[in-house]
């Protein structure tokens, strides 16, 4: 019997380095807890950030377009971009655990270990074109994320976690069916091989129906994760149940991971000139943006409003996936890169004002009334919040204006004028509910007596995160050009 010879060069373990770092960090936290329990959370926060920074360094040092681990791992431009956004988002998120008020989940070291496991899963999702590995990554991440929500340990959060889990299981089913269909058609689970087989078989009669059907099944799973309507149902409940920073985090990191998968899967179809997928994606995106905008309009709670607004942003950006152009793909990462700071900043502003119990509304923690007259009580906080709102509304010169600008110009470049118009109109509707908060903050008489209410949960860590997010949001005009050329460079280097 021949021994199995493994060529270590072909394994190219360097490509695995970013994930391994995260994994090691997670295990380290668990081990520390085993040896010496009841350590302060600030240690775990620091460890987590440290781990993420090392992973960040590892990600940037991997050679572009290299494969490893029996060709399961693929490090190309979009995987690097995806990884960077995931890591930056996580680094920005985790200090928000250092609150003044004591919240249940952050006192467990498991929270941080699980958090790192989740990132580990996302890293695999974006760094592979193997459908099974993507699936494993997706499920690892999801299974870690559900308890992270539930650990908030309130009734809504447990309910949200259960709902998310159940629907996630169904979405996983759709994903598995889609992958199985592709495997059945081509005998492979690797996207680049699938593409080759499709190239040969596309002209066979009747092949288009199973090929397209597989795509639709995958689209359901993807639509679930990036919360496209009507697969979004879990989103508002989960965002409401989860603590505010978690909600902000969920509106960015899991979505960008899934976006990368979507780009990999659907660019394959675009190369085959199967245009119906394009139309389906655009239709879904339009429905998502429009309906979620309208629902955001009628919300009474700022956090729920932000939840719906995140859905509408996701719909907005989904159009760019269907454009099949370098500029379109680049604008996705650009948009998420900017959205990350603004949205996480906005959610963190809610977090900073959080108390253990809701004082202004029987159900909601952050009704609009709470922010009335904030400019008189906490002027700096009001101004920063207003800046985030203006950025979300796409008002120049704040960061998301550029994001919207690039997306819409990518749409126009492709000649989809109607789509561009619908998206622009949607931005106008969206401006209404963002400005509503500003009106409350600046023009309505205050109902709270002092500024303390706004700062109930304030610590230096939270302030730093918010200040940094605000800084990035405001100064976008200075870095937008180099950022865009960096992203475009990476996109061009990717074979999609």
């Amino acid at each position, binding site marked *: 019997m021949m021994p199995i010879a493994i060529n270590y060069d072909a394994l190219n373990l360097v490509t695995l380095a970013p994930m391994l770092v995260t994994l090691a960090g997670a295990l380290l936290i668990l081990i520390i807890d085993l040896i010496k329990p009841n350590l302060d959370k600030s240690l775990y926060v620091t460890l987590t950030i440290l781990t993420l920074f090392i992973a960040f360094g590892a990600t940037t040092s991997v050679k572009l377009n290299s494969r490893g681990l029996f060709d399961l791992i693929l490090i190309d431009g979009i995987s690097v971009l995806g990884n960077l956004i995931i890591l930056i988002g996580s680094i920005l998120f985790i200090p928000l655990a250092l609150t003044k008020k004591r919240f249940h989940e952050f006192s467990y070291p498991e929270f941080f270990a699980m958090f790192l496991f989740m990132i580990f899963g996302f890293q695999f999702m974006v760094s592979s074109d193997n459908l099974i590995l993507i699936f494993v990554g997706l499920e690892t991440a999801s299974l870690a994320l559900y308890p992270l929500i539930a650990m908030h340990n309130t009734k809504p959060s447990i309910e949200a976690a*259960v*709902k998310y889990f*159940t*629907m996630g299981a*169904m*979405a996983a089913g*759709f994903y598995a069916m889609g992958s199985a269909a592709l495997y059945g058609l081509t005998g492979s689970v690797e996207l680049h091989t699938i593409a080759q087989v499709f190239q040969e078989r596309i002209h066979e009669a009747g092949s288009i129906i199973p090929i*397209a*059907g597989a795509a*639709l*099944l995958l*689209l*359901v799973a993807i*639509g*679930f994760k990036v919360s496209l*309507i*009507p*697969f979004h*149902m*879990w989103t*508002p*409940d989960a965002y409401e149940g989860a603590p505010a920073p978690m909600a902000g985090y969920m509106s960015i990191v899991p979505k960008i991971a899934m976006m990368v998968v979507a780009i990999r899967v659907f660019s394959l179809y675009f190369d085959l000139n199967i*245009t*119906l*997928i394009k*139309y*389906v994606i655009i*239709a*879904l995106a339009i429905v998502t943006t429009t*309906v979620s905008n*309208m*629902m*955001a*309009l*009628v919300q009474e709670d700022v956090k729920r409003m932000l939840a719906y607004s995140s859905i509408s942003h996701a719909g907005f950006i989904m159009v760019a996936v269907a454009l099949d152009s370098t500029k379109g793909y680049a604008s996705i990462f650009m948009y998420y890169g900017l959205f990350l700071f603004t949205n996480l900043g906005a959610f963190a502003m809610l977090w900073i004002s959080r108390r253990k119990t809701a004082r202004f509304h029987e159900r909601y923690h952050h009704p609009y009334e709470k922010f009335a007259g904030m400019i008189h009580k906490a002027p700096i906080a009001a101004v920063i919040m207003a800046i985030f709102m203006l950025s979300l509304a796409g008002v120049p010169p704040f960061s998301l204006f550029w994001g919207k600008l690039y997306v819409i110009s990518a749409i126009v470049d492709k000649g989809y004028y109607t789509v561009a118009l619908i998206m622009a109109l949607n931005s106008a*509707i969206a401006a*209404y509910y963002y400005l509503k908060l500003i009106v409350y903050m600046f023009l309505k008489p205050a109902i709270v007596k002092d500024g303390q209410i706004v700062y109930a949960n304030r610590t230096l860590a939270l302030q730093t995160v918010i200040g940094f997010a605000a800084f990035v949001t405001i100064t976008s005009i200075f870095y937008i050009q180099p950022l865009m050329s960096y992203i475009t460079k990476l996109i061009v280097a990717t074979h999609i």
Partner: protein
Amino acid sequence: MQSYLYIALFAPLVSSLFAAIFAQQKKIQLVGIITSILIALSFFASVELLVYLMQTNKIVHATLFDWIVIGDMNVKFGFTVDHVTAVMMVVVTLVSALVHIYSNYYMEHDKSFNRFFSYLSAFVFSMLVLVMSDSFLGLFIGWEGVGVCSWLLIGFWYYKKDETRDVNPSISPSWAANEAFIMNRIADLGLLIGIFLIFWNVGSLKYNDFFAAIPNLNHGLLVAIGIALFIGAMGKSAQFPLHTWLADAMEGPTPVSALIHAATMVTAGVYLVIRANPLYSQIPGVGYFIAVLGTFVAIFAASMALVNRDLKRVIAYSTLSQLGYMFAAAGLGAYWVALFHLAAHAFFKALLFLSAGNVMHAMHDELDMFKMGGLKKYMAKTYLMMGIASLALSGIYPFAGFFSKDTILEVAFNEETYGIWFVLWFTAGLTAFYSFRQVFLVFHGDERFHELGIHPHEAKPYALWAMAPLAVLAVIAGFFKEEFVEFITKFLPPYEMSEHTEHLVWFFIIVTMGIALTGIFIAYKKYANGLRRDPKVENSFLYKLLFNQYYIPIFYEKAFAKPYKELSDIAWKEIDQEIVDATVDGIAKAVEVTGDVSRRAQNGNLSTYLKWMAFGLIFISLIALISVVVK
């Protein structure tokens, strides 16, 4: 030399921003001092540029950055210092620097001292952008910039209430500021149309590109551009029928009147015509119209100044009248003469206004000259300065105004436009009369202010020192005429008098001096020995007509403002509320109802959610099917 250009241009900007930092705070004396120093710095840089230009005859260029790059349109934000610009820069920065220093005195008790200096410096910066730009677009930026600063400064005491005065139904600083701004906006539309026409037909807004393209453009187009640009000039330089704002602008602080509404900004229109001389020399018809309009404004404004009792308004009308002179000269093709009068006028008119400022301070802001008199005993130095300025304005040898005004009259004669010559000549007499009517009413005769319980006092020495350079220039500026001509005609077309006119030079001098002296003499007779009011004259139709500014403000009110307001009312109540608002509200309601309906789907029930997901698959399959079928 570029660094001098940047210093001259940006020192006022720095100055303005510096003062702006303290705008909301209480008076800080240092702000006044530092801004004055920075403007003075700008002046010295301007002088350096002028000297350089004199010695080397090289035009200085500087491109700041690519400003607008859209498709084929590439507009560079560039500056140039040529001969005309250098003269304008020196005049503007000199008067500005002196007015800044003077304002330290005039505004010393104002609670918004710092804010004032911020605006004033911002004005200087805008004015420099206007004169230094190398393209029409840059000129337009400066043009709007000075408009905004003028608005800010006229309305500086925005908190003063509306009051009824003279012919105006209601007037206040903020009202006057709005009037000035709106009138200028109307005229700016003309300027913009001119700029559009240029860009449309030439493809560039640079002066040089446009002037080079003039021979290839057809005559009708040139006339259209010429008229459009001149409409812009009419607004800024307050030419009839857009003249009413200038007199009302006197609501602003007096240093503002001196700097903006006499010496610099209002001459921007004249500058534009001088700058566009290659254009206007191709369209003599338009030029002639400009000259006629200028002549008309000269006598029209002078006639109103004859009877007005408001100290500052008289000077404002005289400014109008002198602007008319400048346009007459420019319109007749004597561009350097117009520029010369512009410069000389800037010096003595600023001086006149600052003197008026001293008088106002002494009189506790009383402006009615009928309530003054005999002030020379109390304010000998101001009397001297105002006397010099008035002599210069009247065109008495050897003061500055004599040389410039006399040359304009010679030009009018030389062009054989004897009508223009006669009117301007007669206006010179009126000018002398009202100038000295003012001097005598204020400084001579019986002391009528005692009834008001006022104790007049002379201005502070440094304020008088700030005025001194202007006084010197008002006396001697005329003697540099030869050097000026030699310098400026390297850039502007020379203007040669015919031999016939040359022979008559002495005749002109005598005739012009004659009528000016006559005017002064009549004023002396009538006003120097106390005020004797004659009800018969004051009730005569002519007097009332002049006193009420030909009833033009009332006409504007009745003919434009009232109908416009009624129209606005209809647009608001009938169109906006009934149609536009209802539609918008309807859309918003529909959106909200849709949101409410879709919210019901979000009922918290997990089974429903799962059903929706399954439905979603059917939904996207349907879309896929449709997209296949439709294709």
